[in-house]
């Protein structure tokens, strides 16, 4: 047995088969089959509490979800979440990537520090902010009260729109560092001579940013944008710990979790998951396409 294995891995062909076949099968079972199965379930009435009632219903689940007011409001919240998160993260990360690309004392310390929020568990992040924002004794209330900005403590997470905004900020706080590092990498690949010659030609910092930096890091910006979109669309941990299944922060992802795992509606849940995935796919597709168009012109 041992000898046989040794014989296989010692030839190129054997080694190739040994890794390619199992991984191909694994990816099929863990990535492709679930996609196919999701589609199958999305066409069925499938409630885990009434398993004997499972039957084929065609596109009924899709129509039912689309006509549900809860879906529309969850969709609105998700769209709002993604748009605000993408805008905030990209602009903050861009700004700080530019700053971190400058030469200054203590740069490496700050670079290390800046990435920290990305490394901590999102659950910890959610709980941390839950306290910072707590209405009765939280940090933010205490701070603003001491500074004289507010005269009474404010329940930050009670108002629906405020709760959603804070959920976005909590996510932005964790995710910005990762994007900052991505963009910093792109910035560092720009040779310094390009800036030097532009400076000689009399271009000021702003012009240099718009006409040199931005076009050169555009591919990385596109990647960053898609990464942020995918992650902000599927945020779960932070919302779950910050506000739980509160309707105010019920995005499509939270709605899907509630449908499938709180109510046991696997059919409806699969249909919703499918719609979310298709929607994300289309966004990414059109975005990539529009970028390539611009490059070709």
């Amino acid at each position: 047995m041992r000898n046989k294995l040794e014989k296989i891995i010692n030839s190129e062909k054997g080694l190739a088969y040994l890794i390619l076949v199992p991984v191909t099968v694994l990816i099929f079972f863990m990535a492709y089959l679930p996609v196919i199965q999701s589609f199958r379930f999305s066409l069925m009435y499938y409630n885990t509490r009434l398993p004997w009632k499972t039957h084929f219903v065609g596109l009924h689940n899709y129509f039912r979800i689309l006509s549900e007011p809860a879906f529309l409001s969850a969709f609105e919240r998700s769209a709002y979440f993604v748009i605000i998160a993408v805008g905030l993260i990209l602009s903050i990360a861009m700004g700080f990537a530019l700053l971190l690309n400058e030469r200054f004392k203590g740069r490496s310390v700050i670079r290390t520090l800046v990435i920290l929020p990305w490394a901590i568990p999102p659950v910890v992040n959610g709980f941390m902010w839950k306290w910072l924002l707590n209405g009765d004794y939280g940090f933010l209330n205490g701070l603003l009260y001491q500074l004289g900005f507010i005269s009474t403590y404010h329940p930050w997470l009670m108002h629906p729109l405020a709760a959603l905004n804070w959920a976005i900020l909590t996510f932005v706080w964790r995710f910005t560092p990762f994007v900052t590092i991505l963009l910093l990498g792109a910035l560092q690949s720009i040779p310094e001579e390009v800036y030097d010659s532009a400076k000689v030609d009399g271009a000021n910092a702003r012009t240099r940013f718009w006409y040199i930096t931005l076009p050169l890091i555009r591919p990385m910006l596109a990647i960053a944008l898609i990464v942020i979109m995918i992650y902000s669309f599927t945020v779960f941990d932070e919302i779950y710990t910050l506000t739980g299944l509160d309707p105010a922060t019920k995005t499509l992802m939270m709605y899907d979790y509630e449908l499938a795992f709180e109510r046991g509606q696997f059919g409806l849940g699969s249909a919703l998951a499918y719609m979310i995935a298709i929607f994300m796919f289309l966004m990414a597709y059109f975005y990539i396409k529009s970028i390539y168009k611009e490059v070709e012109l």
Partner: protein
Amino acid sequence: MLKLCKREKIIVYILLVIYSSIILIPFFMTIMNSFKSMREIFLLPFSLPSHPSFRNFIDAWHQANMGNAYLNSALIAFTSVIGTTFISSLFAYAISRYRFPFRRQLYMYSMLGLAFPARLAIIPVFLMMKSLGLIDTRLGLIIIYISVGIPFSVFLLKNFIDGVPLEIEEAARIDGASAWMIFWRIVLPLIRPALAIVAIVRFVGVWNDFFFPLIFINTRSKATITLAVSIFFGEYSNTWNLLFASLTLAIIPILILFLIFSKQFISGMTKGAIK
């Protein structure tokens, strides 16, 4: 670099100080609060702990069974990180170096596995795991994490291997080294920086994950660290002091790992490992 003048530089410093404090304050408060009593957390949110004690840590440790959770998280994280890194590097190596039919298609196939986020395909994965008897087991989570990590790791490692010159491997082949020896003794050491990135990114991803344990684990003794932390909400609701102590305990290993590897990680991320 934008080559800023002196006044612009001062603004840069001010902005950096603000940014750093926005990042540091939540950490600082969490750690401070884990040394305070409940009363102190409420009444004196800004002060340093007046009687710093490890009482909260001991209580949190026992109530949430943190020791056990640490072991579970460590076991799951290490096994799946080693699994993903090993499988992906061999797979990426074969795709990058060997010539066989449908090579490009196979690469696309493994990348496209990433297109449908695992969280959205959770229902069929859940049912599949259930039929295999892997619900509420650590092995089930390990299998999921290994597969979830493959596309990203293969992508990164393949790009990195593509950039490694062929000559060394060819010389070894002429000297009679076997396929396995070339991979294990020559290629792996050469791609160490990329392996480090894959390992760190995956470790952070697995250690921090809450979604899969929440759905797959029901037994307390199998809870991961993120599940253990969430116990202080709901069941022991409002025990903020214990919650903070458990949060601190949950981030300590990640902080240590980070302080050791952050330089390597950031230089790897910014200097070509991801391109």
